[in-house]
C-alpha cells in the first residue's frame, strides 16, 4: 500500500512539474476543456466577426470596404460648412458652422478630444512639443505662429479631415462635430498665448498678483 501512495505522489509531482502553476506566460493557444473540434458550433459560429478573417473573400477579411460609387443611406451631408469646412462661395469657412452651438460644453469636448488625438504630437499647449518630438518628429509645427493663427477654421478642418503632408487624416477617429470641437479648443490655446493683463477680470487680478 505504501508503494501505491508513493506512486501517486510521484504522479502528482510529475503532473505539477509538467503543467506548472497558474498565471505563467505561454504562447500556444489556450487549452479548451470542451474543445471546438469535439463540440463543433458551440462556441464559434460560422459567421463574420468584426475585424475578423474570412475564407470567402479574396482579401481574407470579413469587414468589407465600400464599393466605388456607393451612396450613404444616412441623411444627405449637404451642409458644406459642417462637413467640408467651406463657406457658400467655396472659400474656407471663417468662424464655426451655424449647425453647432459654440458653448462651454463644446469646448470641454474639444479639450478631451485634443488631449487624446493631437497632444501626443502638438503638445498639451499646442506649441508643437509633444512627447514624439523627443523621438525624432521634428516637423510638428506650433499653433502659435501668425500663419496658423490667421488660418480660417475651415482650412484647419480640412487638415484634420484629409491630413496635410506628414500629418495623416484623423477623419476615422473624429466625427465632424468633434473636429469642430477640437478646432474650438485650438483657437482657445492660441488665444491663451496672446493673453494680457486686460484679459483677466478685474476681481481676479489680485489672485495672480497683478
Amino acid at each position, binding site marked *: *500500500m505504501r508503494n*501505491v*501512495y508513493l506512486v*501517486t505522489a510521484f504522479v*502528482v509531482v510529475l*503532473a505539477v512539474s509538467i*503543467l506548472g502553476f*497558474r*498565471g*505563467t*506566460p*505561454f*504562447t500556444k*493557444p*489556450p*487549452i*479548451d*476543456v470542451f474543445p471546438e473540434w469535439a463540440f463543433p458550433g*458551440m*462556441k*464559434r*459560429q460560422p*459567421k463574420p466577426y*468584426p*475585424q475578423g478573417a474570412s475564407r470567402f473573400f479574396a*482579401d*481574407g*477579411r470579413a469587414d468589407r*470596404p465600400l464599393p466605388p460609387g456607393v451612396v450613404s443611406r444616412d441623411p444627405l451631408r449637404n451642409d458644406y460648412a459642417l462637413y467640408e469646412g467651406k463657406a457658400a462661395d467655396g472659400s474656407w469657412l471663417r468662424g464655426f458652422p451655424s449647425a453647432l452651438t459654440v458653448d462651454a460644453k463644446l469646448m470641454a469636448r474639444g479639450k478631451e478630444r485634443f*488631449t*487624446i*488625438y493631437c497632444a*501626443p*504630437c502638438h503638445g498639451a499647449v499646442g506649441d508643437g512639443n509633444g*512627447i*514624439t518630438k523627443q*523621438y*525624432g*518628429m521634428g*516637423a510638428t509645427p506650433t499653433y502659435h505662429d501668425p500663419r496658423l493663427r490667421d488660418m480660417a477654421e475651415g482650412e484647419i478642418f480640412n487638415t484634420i479631415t484629409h491630413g496635410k503632408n*506628414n*500629418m*495623416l*487624416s484623423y477623419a*476615422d*477617429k473624429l466625427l465632424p462635430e468633434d473636429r469642430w470641437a477640437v478646432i474650438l479648443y485650438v483657437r482657445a490655446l492660441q488665444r491663451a498665448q496672446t493673453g494680457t493683463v486686460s484679459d483677466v477680470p478685474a476681481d481676479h487680478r489680485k489672485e495672480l498678483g497683478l
Partner: protein
Amino acid sequence: MSKLFPKSANKLPLQIIVYLVVLAGVVTAGATYYMTPKYTRVGYAPVQPVPYSHALHAGQLGIDCRYCHSNVEKSGVANLPTSQTCMNCHNQVKKDSPLLAVVRHSYETGEAVPWVKVHQTPDYVYFNHAIHVNRGVSCVECHGKINEMEVVTHAQPLSMGFCLDCHRNPAPRVREPGDVFNLDSATIAQKSGLEAAHKFLKDRNIKPPQSCSGCHR
C-alpha cells in the same frame, strides 16, 4: 485447502476505500486548479506579427488607449487600430525599422496586419465595451495593467464567475469617468471610501445584469 490470502488481506478493502477517497480528493483538486480558465487562459501571450509594445506606447509615451482603440467608448467592440494609425507617427519615427515592415506593407497595399487575438468570449455570451467603459469600469479591471506589458498577456480569467463577481458587487471596482482610461488610477472606493462608491452607483442608476438573459441573449 491452503490459505490463499494472508491475514493482512482482511484490511485491504478498507485500505482501498481510503486510497480511492484520497485519489478522488487529489483529482478534484487538480481539476479545479488546472481545468478552469484561471489556469487555461491567464498568461496567454501569443507571438504577434509586429513586436508592438504597450509599455512603450501607452506607458512611456502616455498615448491614450482611445488614440488606437478609438471605438471603445462608442461601440460594443474595441477595435484594433488601422495601420494608418501606426503610420501617423511611423512615417517619421523609425520609418525604416525592419520591425515595422509588416505595418508598412499593410499601409501600402491595404492588406490586414495579422494580429493574433488574445481575449475572446464564446459566441453565446454578449459582451459590450461601451457600456462598461462609459459606466466607470476601467480597462484594468478586465485586461490588467496593459500599460506595463511588453506583450499583451491575458491577465484575468474572463470566465462567467469573474464577470458575475463584479456584477453582484461593482462598488469596490468602479472609477470616476475621468479615470477610466488611466490604468494607474485609484477606484472611487480607494479614494473616498465605499460609501462614495455606493452613492456613485445609486446616482447613476448603475445596475449590472445578473440574470442569465443579461449576458446570454
